């Protein structure tokens, strides 16, 4: 593992140029039937093909609507529509980076979790019923950061995972 990854902390999320660099990414135009179509159009008119695995991931999330009550054996309800919509929006943004989630699960409090993993480094994106979203970074099960999801924290967390040394030509 690269030592530079271990040294990243919350202050690394504070620099201001990132939002300008990612504004158009976060505001992707969302196709409402994305799992059936092959492209997503971002606000800068860039059209990106949706990878098959992202389409499959979107379909999986859509199936969670139909989970029965008590699906976890402890009385959980299916994910909320807000959680489903926001998690699908995130997957469409992820299409632009050609990255594939390693785990997509509903949570007992009607949310959706999408994980991305590289070796033992993991990002956990949590989409909640109240329309809020969070991102946490882990090395193993040791939490390194935990933030509300914004353009900045989304970009920086993905960079933390996929390009920790900042010296990558095509991670985006």
């Amino acid at each position, binding site marked *: 593992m690269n030592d530079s990854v271990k040294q990243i902390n919350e202050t690394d999320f504070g620099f201001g140029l990132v939002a300008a660099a990612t504004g158009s990414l976060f505001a992707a135009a969302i196709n409402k039937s994305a799992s059936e179509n092959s492209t997503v159009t971002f606000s800068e008119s860039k059209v990106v093909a949706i990878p098959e695995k992202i389409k499959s991931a979107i379909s999986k999330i859509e199936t969670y609507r139909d989970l029965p009550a008590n699906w976890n*054996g*402890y009385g959980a*309800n299916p994910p909320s529509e807000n959680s489903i919509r926001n998690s699908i929006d995130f997957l469409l943004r992820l299409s632009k980076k050609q990255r594939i989630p390693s*785990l997509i699960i509903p*949570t*007992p409090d009607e949310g959706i979790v999408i*994980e991305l*993993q590289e070796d033992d480094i993991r990002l956990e994106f949590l989409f909640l019923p109240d329309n809020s979203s969070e991102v946490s970074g882990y090395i193993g099960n040791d939490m390194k950061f935990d933030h509300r999801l914004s353009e900045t924290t989304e970009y920086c967390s993905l960079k933390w995972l996929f390009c920790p040394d900042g010296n990558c030509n095509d991670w985006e």
Partner: protein
Amino acid sequence: MEIVTIGNDDFLLRRFPLAHPNYIRPDGSISSFAYQPSSRDIDGLSVDLEKLTTPKVTVQDPNIFGLLKIKGGSIRAVPDLDCVHNPVDGNDAHSLIIGKITKSKKNQLIDASERIPQAELI
């Protein structure tokens, strides 16, 4: 049912989904959301005290659920968490993990947990 003391060496059992959805990652590890309370878990997170039940009873349906076990002492080793016996109608083994379970604490709990092999639940 008389309330029993949960010793540090007593095991507690917690179900997790392994079909649809599936909480097991591709590398075989289990998501810490197995220890995520829901909005109805006001008093604490439900677990079963192993010495008052069996894994086969607690798992309910081994086609849908797996089972984690964790020692009472491992729960108490997480700051501000404790476990207490809390029998309910139809489940004398019912117990609670009490205290606020944060993301970090969920991960400490999953680290301290061991999965019971599925073959032992059938």
